[in-house]
């Protein structure tokens, strides 16, 4: 099996020692780099595209969440923290785990098993060479007010413009993402996401049904009950794409 590329971001050298010691018992995990602050971590992750990030939350200067906010694409993340569980609890919807320091060996193994399972589920499809765009299984980090989400691209139903930012719909949540819709569109995988009009982008895998609307337009109902109108120009392209 392919090794899991792992990165540690942790300010304390002794704590990194500790984690490295724990990693020794898991030969399938390959430590490809470590960073002692958020900025170094950001460089490291962008350069090495790891599968797994072991991230300390509480660091001087910038904290772990700030690192996630900086990243366009977030690797599978396991948080390590000494005490501030409440920070973890701010996650509304997540696919992540956290470990309390000092870390229990058994608990660490469990977390790693979970990571492996997640990777096996999503990792079968080969990551395209074009790394500029995210894939269905990529996850992004969204922080809106006090709440945080790690969202899989494939789970996103709809993204729409709200002022200068965007609102992301997935499951029954719709937090704000502090990026413009055009910025978001550039990163989304082209094969599934479609710009239906000036305001909205939809995920074509989450369309429930399509009805013809007036003026040659189309109306789509999404799986979450939202309805979107496709502009006339985009309707032609849409029909083409769906080979109507």
């Amino acid at each position, binding site marked *: 099996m392919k090794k899991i590329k792992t990165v540690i971001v942790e300010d*304390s*050298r*002794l*704590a*990194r*020692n*500790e984690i490295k*010691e724990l990693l020794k018992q898991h030969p399938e995990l390959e430590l490809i780099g470590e960073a002692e602050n958020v900025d170094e971590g950001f460089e490291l992750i962008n350069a090495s595209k790891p599968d797994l990030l072991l991230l300390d939350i*509480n660091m*001087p*200067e910038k904290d772990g969440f700030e690192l996630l906010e900086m990243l366009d694409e977030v690797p599978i993340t396991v948080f390590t923290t*000494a*005490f*501030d569980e409440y920070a973890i609890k701010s996650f509304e919807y997540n696919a992540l785990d956290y470990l*309390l*320091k*000092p*870390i229990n060996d058994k608990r660490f193994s469990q977390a790693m098993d979970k990571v492996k399972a997640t990777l096996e589920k999503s990792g079968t499809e080969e990551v395209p060479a074009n790394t500029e765009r995210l894939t269905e299984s990529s996850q992004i980090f969204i922080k809106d007010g006090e709440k945080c989400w790690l969202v899989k691209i494939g789970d996103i139903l709809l993204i729409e413009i709200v002022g200068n930012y965007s609102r992301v719909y997935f499951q029954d949540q719709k937090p704000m993402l502090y990026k413009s819709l055009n910025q978001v569109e550039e990163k989304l995988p082209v094969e599934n996401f479609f710009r239906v009009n000036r305001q909205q982008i939809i995920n074509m895998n989450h369309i429930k049904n399509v009805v013809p609307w007036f003026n040659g337009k189309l109306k789509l109902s999404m799986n979450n009950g939202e309805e979107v109108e496709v502009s006339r120009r985009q309707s032609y392209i849409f029909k083409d794409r769906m080979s109507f």
Partner: protein
Amino acid sequence: MIKFLTKNPFWIVQIIGWFVSGLFVASANKSGSNIQALFFLFGSIFIVGIFSTSLLRAYLKKFVSVEKIGIKQIAIIFLGIFLTTISWFLLNFCFGYLVGLLVDSVDLHVKKNFLDSPNIGLFVFILNLFLIIIWTVLYYGIKMLIDYNRSRIDRLRLRDKIKQEQLNILKGHINPEFMFTSLNNIKGLMLEDVSDSRNKLTQLAELLRYSLTKNNINTVLLEEEIAYVYNFIELVFIENKTASTIECHIDEATKKLEIPPMLLLNMIELATKHGVLLHNVKGEIFIHSERREDQLFLTVTHSGASSPKSQRKVLEKSIQQRLKLLYKEEAHFSRTFKEGHTILELVLPIIEEKITEV
């Protein structure tokens, strides 16, 4: 008996009040040559008065609740007053008759007075009514005064309790995050240097013990707190001992002064975790204590600015609140930034005797 009376102020006031009124009415009587008549007057006021108003009290206690006073309650009170007056009047008559059976002359005297001039009967009735009204007003007046006093004491006691609770919450303690981070660091250090990690573990244990045992003590000696400050610093700089220089000037005259526990430790936490450790350069910390008249000045100066994070503000606020609860306005904590250094200053009043339990 005395215990009964102190517990029931009602009976003291009741007996003394009626005794005095009885004497007063008896002595005011102009026709007072007749000793039996005086005895009758005194008895009718004292004995019958006590008896009827005690009944009235029982009635008021049963049917009237002062908390929800309204027209209905006032009507009940007046009905009580009226009934009591009637019963007093009749009892007076019976009393007179009873006295009359024992002493002939009084019987005649009283009977004659009552029967001959109904005006006197009316006068006695009005006098009784008047007395009962005064009694009722006094009864409620005194009752309210006692209740007010009792609730004031309750309130004070409650406020004290709240203050103690607040203080317990605010009482400095070792930050749990620091505890666990240190434990984790020691675990990591074991891979490199076993004997050093053994020392660190002992220091952490001492600090924990200090935090746990001093939690319900109001003051410690400054020198005692300083000893734990060293432990704390050693653990904070567990990774690189040379990263900062620490200088400590504790004035001899201040070593035996009493200070609330954990305040200085919290200041050191501000200076390290929220101070020098934020900057990637070698830091400096100065600890200084000095006595000026009846004030103790404790300053912790560290190089660089302090953290803008909310945890720092929370810690500073907790220090401020603790000072306010312990010393009202007499103690101060301040942070100033001057020439690249942050100065944390704590000014405590020196109280020679122990701070008493709040």
